């Protein structure tokens, strides 16, 4: 098995539920700063990895199936049907078929991973995900030799998704990774946040999390996983090739054509929060830089 990601943060670094529930009220007032320093473990704080509150994580989202506004997913995603849920696994796999979540995940270790999350729009959060390593799921379905890419597809439920009915972008939303990226121990199939089942605005019931790439790569509400030997089409790349590359690794030195990627603003700091410098590969350079050895990252943005 591939080397596993060793998490140097412990469950103690996750804000206890009572605390984040409580923090919602504290944060509502101007006394937020005082409350912030109380929450989160020391290691997490030292790494600048203090998780955002569940309320922040679930009320500021891009999920265009529910509309283009940041609050649209929180307002509209409630009607999405996520149970029963099945994922079609096909392409170059030994055991293709339609899998229930249980069939795909049972017996795998669900881990707590506190990751930075950096949106291509230059805002960021810290999210305590719960999930399994995608590599383990790929092993379960058996990747055939010759497969080089993994393609993903989001569910399309026009009756519950106003953004789909309006056609704000082409649907279904599709994304993809190179197989070695997909197998990297940082790459998660996440099923929860803060120990709760994945909230609908965040891509219930199961989504991808690739913390060193811009957020749109971390596709939500997955219903299809396809192993292939050719680079799969990805939604934003197809919409605007110049602005959104297939790789879309977080890189402060390669700007989006319309805005700078050198800095970002961490969500939740209020009206006077300052920007912070964006980290190469979103702070996961030590773990993932070797995946791109010898590649021109300006060319392969």
């Amino acid at each position, binding site marked *: 098995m591939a080397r596993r990601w060793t998490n140097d943060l412990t469950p103690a670094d996750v804000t206890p539920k009572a605390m984040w529930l409580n923090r919602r009220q504290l944060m509502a007032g101007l006394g937020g700063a005082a409350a912030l320093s109380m929450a989160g473990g020391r290691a997490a704080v030292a790494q600048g990895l203090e998780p955002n509150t569940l309320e922040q994580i679930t009320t500021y989202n891009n999920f265009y199936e529910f509309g283009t506004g940041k609050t649209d997913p929180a307002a509209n995603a409630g009607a999405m049907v996520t149970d029963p849920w099945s994922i079609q696994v096909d392409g170059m796999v030994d055991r293709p078929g339609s899998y229930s979540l249980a069939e795909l995940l049972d017996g795998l270790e669900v881990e707590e991973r506190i990751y930075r999350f950096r949106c291509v729009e230059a805002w960021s959060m810290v999210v305590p995900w719960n999930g399994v390593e995608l590599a383990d799921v790929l092993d379960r379905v058996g990747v055939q030799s010759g497969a080089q890419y993994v393609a993903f597809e989001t569910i399309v439920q026009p009756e519950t998704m106003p953004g789909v009915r309006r056609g704000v972008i082409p649907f279904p939303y599709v994304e993809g990774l190179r197989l070695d990226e997909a197998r990297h121990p940082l790459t998660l199939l996440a099923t929860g946040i803060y120990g709760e089942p994945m909230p609908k605005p965040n891509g219930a019931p199961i989504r991808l999390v690739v913390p060193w790439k811009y957020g749109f790569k971390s596709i939500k509400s997955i219903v299809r996983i396809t192993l292939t030997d050719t680079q799969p089409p990805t939604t934003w790349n197809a919409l605007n090739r110049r602005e959104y590359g297939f790789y879309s690794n977080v890189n402060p030195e390669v700007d989006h054509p319309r805005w700078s990627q050198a800095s970002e603003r961490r969500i939740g700091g*209020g009206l006077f929060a300052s920007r912070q410098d964006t980290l190469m590969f979103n702070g996961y350079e030590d773990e993932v830089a070797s995946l791109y050895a010898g590649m021109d990252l300006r060319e392969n943005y």
Partner: protein
Amino acid sequence: MTVAQSINRAQRHVPAWPIYLLGLAWMGWLFWLGLSGQLGPEPINTLERKYGLVALQILVATLAITPLRTWTNISLIKYRRALGVTAFAFVLAHFLVWTLLDLRSLSRIGEEIVKRPYITIGFAAFVLLIPLAATSNNWSIRKLGGMGWRKLHKLTYPAILLGAVHFVWLVKGYPWEPFLYLGAVVGLLALRLIPKRRPQAARPPAGAVPR
């Protein structure tokens, strides 16, 4: 009495100055919402966008006043200055949130204006509006003369058009809202190109080729 006549009669009793007060109150209220955590977890971006959007909405309203008079005889011209100045105040607030709360660095601001076309044109729109706001008073009209003043204030057309393009240019995907504003601006500008109706429409001479 026609609808236009009754509206024109009623507006004589409704002064323009409350527009300034309402504008400032609305601006302050939005700021307070941001300050008190009621604009969501990213209040800087939300406030920036809200101020920009309100500015564009009011600017579209100012652009509608002349065609409204031309085509319906409803005259709301006495409110145009207050609307224009209030819109400028929102553009200024939009700019200040961007510079003082969002970027907070002169070099970053300069770089963004130069490097990002949608910011370049937004900034250009702002600059075009400055002399217009500065001359929105009776003293300036006297000083510039009616003709000169009117000529200067034709700058509203490119300024508002640039503002609408700025909005379209910054979004991802194809949301309808910014395109709706751009369409409204283009439509209101196009209406000005159509020759004004004359009191009695001249019938085309017999045998004239319809154009």
